[in-house]
C-alpha cells in the first residue's frame, strides 16, 4: 500500500482546518520574511526592525485577547501593564537608578528581568483586578481606563526614579544566555549557534520576538482548551449561569486579568530592550486603543485572527498611513503634476491621518463587526442570534 504524502500526514484534513492553515502561513512568512526582505533590500534591515516592533504589538494583542476575547472583560487600560513591564526592565537594566535617590545602578540580566517584568505586570493586574472584578461590564472598562491614565502620569511624576519626561535611555541589550553560549556558538562558519549581536543587528531581535510569540501562542491556545479556558468562555457568555455551574467567577476573572497583564509585561520588557528607551509617552491611551482594535479587527477570541489583525493594523497605522504623503507625492509627480501641487497634496494627506484612521475604524466595525477571522464559536453565536432576530421579525409581521 503506497500512501501519498497528502494521505500520510492527513494534510488535507489539516489544511481544511482554517487555523492550522493560517498558522502555517504565518510560520513560513515569519521565517522567509527576513531572508527575502534583506536580500531584496540589498542587506538593509530597516524593514526587519519595523517587524520587531510589529511583533511587540502581536504579543500585546495575544495577551489582551485573553482578557477581552476569552473572558469577555473589557480592558481599556492595557498599556498600563505594558508600561509597568517596560519600566521594570528599564529601571533594573540601565544606569537610571544611579541618578535616583538609590545612587547605585543595578544591572540585572535581560533573561531574568523579562520574567520578573512578567510577574510584576501580572501582580499589578491582580492588584487592580481584586477590588474591581466584582464590578460588571462597563464599570470594569472605566476602572481600567482610569488606571491606564494614572500609570503613565505616575511615571512622569516620580521623575526622581523614572526620569519623568526625560525618559530612560541606554537600556542594556540582551546577550545570548550562557547555556546557549559554548564551543558551538560564535560567528564562525562551522558554529551551530550564531552569536546574535543584539546591539547592532535587528535580526537578533526579530528571532527573539518570533520565539516569544510562538511561546505565547502555544501557552494561550493550551489555556484556551483547558478547564480554565472553558470557564472563561462560560463567564463571557453568561456570568450568572457560570457561577451557578460552580465556577468561582472572581478568581477566574482575576486569572484572566493577571495572565493577560503578564503578556504585556513580557512585551514591555522586550520593547524596552529593543528600543533601549522608554518614555511615559509611549504608553498612552492610544496604545491601549490600538491594541484593542487589533484584537477586535482580527476577530476576538481567535488567536490566529488576532495575530493577523495585529499585523494588518500595525501595517496600516505605522507604515501605510505615515507613508501616504510620500507615496502620493511620488504618484503626483509621476502623473506629471508640478512639485508644488504634489507638495500641497502631500501636506493635505499628512493632515488627513487622523481622519483616515477614524474612518477605517468606523468602516471596519460597520462592515465586519466580527473581525477578519472570527472565532468559530463566536461566529456561530452571532449567526444564531441573527437567525433568532430574523425569526422574531417574521413572527412580528405574522402577528400584524
Amino acid at each position, binding site marked *: 500500500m503506497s500512501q501519498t504524502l497528502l494521505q500520510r500526514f492527513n494534510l488535507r484534513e489539516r489544511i481544511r482546518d482554517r487555523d492550522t492553515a493560517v498558522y502555517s502561513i504565518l510560520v513560513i512568512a515569519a521565517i522567509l520574511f527576513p531572508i527575502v526582505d534583506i536580500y531584496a533590500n540589498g542587506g538593509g534591515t530597516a524593514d526587519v526592525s519595523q517587524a520587531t516592533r510589529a511583533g511587540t504589538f502581536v504579543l500585546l494583542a495575544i495577551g489582551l485577547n485573553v482578557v477581552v476575547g476569552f473572558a469577555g472583560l473589557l480592558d481599556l487600560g492595557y498599556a498600563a501593564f505594558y508600561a509597568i513591564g517596560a519600566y521594570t526592565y528599564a529601571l533594573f537594566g540601565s544606569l537610571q537608578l544611579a541618578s535616583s535617590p538609590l545612587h547605585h545602578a543595578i544591572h540585572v540580566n535581560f533573561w531574568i528581568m523579562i520574567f520578573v517584568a512578567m510577574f510584576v505586570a501580572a501582580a499589578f493586574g491582580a492588584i487592580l483586578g481584586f477590588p474591581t472584578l466584582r464590578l460588571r461590564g462597563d*464599570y470594569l472598562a*472605566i476602572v481600567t*481606563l482610569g488606571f491606564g491614565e494614572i500609570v503613565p502620569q505616575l511615571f512622569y511624576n516620580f521623575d526622581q526614579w523614572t526620569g519623568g519626561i526625560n525618559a530612560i535611555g541606554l537600556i542594556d541589550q540582551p546577550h545570548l544566555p550562557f547555556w546557549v553560549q559554548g564551543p558551538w556558538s560564535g560567528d564562525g562558519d562551522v558554529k551551530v549557534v550564531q552569536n546574535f549581536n543584539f546591539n547592532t543587528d535587528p535580526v537578533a531581535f526579530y528571532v527573539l520576538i518570533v520565539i516569544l510569540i510562538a511561546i505565547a501562542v502555544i501557552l494561550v491556545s493550551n489555556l484556551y482548551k483547558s478547564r480554565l479556558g472553558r470557564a472563561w468562555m462560560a463567564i463571557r457568555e453568561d456570568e450568572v449561569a457560570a457561577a451557578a455551574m460552580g465556577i468561582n467567577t472572581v478568581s477566574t476573572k482575576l486569572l484572566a486579568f493577571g495572565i493577560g497583564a503578564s503578556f504585556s509585561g513580557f512585551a514591555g520588557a522586550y520593547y524596552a530592550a529593543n528600543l533601549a528607551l522608554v518614555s511615559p509617552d509611549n504608553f498612552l491611551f492610544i496604545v491601549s486603543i490600538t491594541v484593542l*482594535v487589533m484584537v*477586535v479587527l482580527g476577530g*476576538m477570541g481567535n488567536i490566529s485572527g488576532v495575530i493577523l489583525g495585529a499585523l494588518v493594523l500595525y501595517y496600516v497605522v505605522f507604515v501605510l498611513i505615515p507613508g501616504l504623503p510620500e507615496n502620493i507625492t511620488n504618484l503626483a509627480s509621476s502623473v506629471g503634476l508640478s512639485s508644488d501641487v504634489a507638495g500641497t497634496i502631500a501636506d493635505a494627506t499628512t493632515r488627513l491621518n487622523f481622519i483616515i*484612521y477614524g474612518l477605517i475604524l468606523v468602516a471596519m466595525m*460597520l462592515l465586519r463587526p466580527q473581525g477578519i477571522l472570527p472565532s468559530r464559536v463566536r461566529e456561530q453565536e452571532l449567526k444564531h442570534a441573527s437567525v433568532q432576530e430574523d425569526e422574531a421579525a417574521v413572527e412580528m409581521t405574522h402577528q400584524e
Partner: protein
Amino acid sequence: MSLPDYGFYILCATAVLLLATQAITHPTDFLQVTIFGLTQGAIYALVALGYTMVYGIIELINFAHGDVFTLSAYIGTTVLGFFAINEGTFTTVNLIALVVVFPVVMLVMGGINVGIERVAYRPLRNAPRLAPLITAIGMSFFLEGVMFFWKGPATVHFPDILPQYSTTIGGVFFGFKDIFVVVTAAILVSLLAVFINRTKLGKAMRATAQDRDAAQLMGIDINRTIAATFFIGAVLAGAGGLIWGLYYNTVYFQLGFRSGLIAFTAAVFGGIGNIPGAALGGLLIGLIAGYSDTYIGSKWTQVVVFGILIGVLVFRPTGLLGMRVPEK
C-alpha cells in the same frame, strides 16, 4: 452599612477635613480656588450630561462626545468671524454676536451629533457591545482629524468678547466671566431638567432608558428618542465648548480627549445615567481639580481625578446619586 460604604465615607470625611483646615487658615485663597473650581466644574457638568444621557439610554461610552465639545468651540470661532467683534471692550456687536453664536453653534452641534449617531451607532445597536465602542473611538479620531485638518495642530485663539468687568470683594477676585459661565450653565441645566421631567419627549427618553423594548411596545419611536438624546447631549456640549472658549480663549484639537475623560469621570462620580448626578458630579470634579491644582500640584490632578474615578467605582459603583441599574 457595609465595609465599602465605611471606606467611602472615611475618604470623603478626610478630604472635607483637609479642605476645611485650608479654608480656615487661608480663607481668601480657598474662596478664590473655589470660584475657579466652580466655573471649571460648570463646564464639566455640561459635558458630563451628554455622557450620562447617552449612557443611560443606549449604554454606550460615547468617546466622541469630548470632541463634539471641542468642535463646537472651533465652529464658534468661525461664526464669530462673521461679526465685527471687538476684543477687549464690550460693544453692542459683541452682544449680538453672543446672542447669535450660542443657538447657531448649539443647533449645528446637535445636527452633527445626530448624524454621528445615524452613521456610526444606529447600525450597530444590536451588534456585540464592543462594536459601537470602537466606532465611537473611530468617530473621536475622525472629529479630531477634522479639527486638525481645518486649523492645524497649534492652539486656536477664541475671541475674547465678554465684558472685562471684575471686582474684588474681601480680597477675592470675581470676574464677569466666572459669573457668566456659572449662570449660563445653571440656566441650561435647569432647562434640561424641565425638558426631561415635563415634556412628552423627555418622558419617552426616561422610558427608553428604563426598558427599551417595553417603551417600544408602548408606541415610543425608539430611533427618534435616541436621536433626540444625542441632539440634546450635543446641544449642551456645544454650549460647554463655547463657554470654554469664551472663558479660556484658547482651544486645541485634542482638548476634547482629556476634558472628555474628566467629564466622563464626573458622570460616573454622580452616578452614570443619572442627570442631576452628572451636574453635581461635574461641579464636584471641577472643585476637586481646582483644589488639587492648588494644594497638591497640577501634575497630580490627573492622578487625583482618575483615582477618584477608581475609588468611586470600587467603594460605590452606583456613584453619589446613582440608581441601581439592573444587569441586562
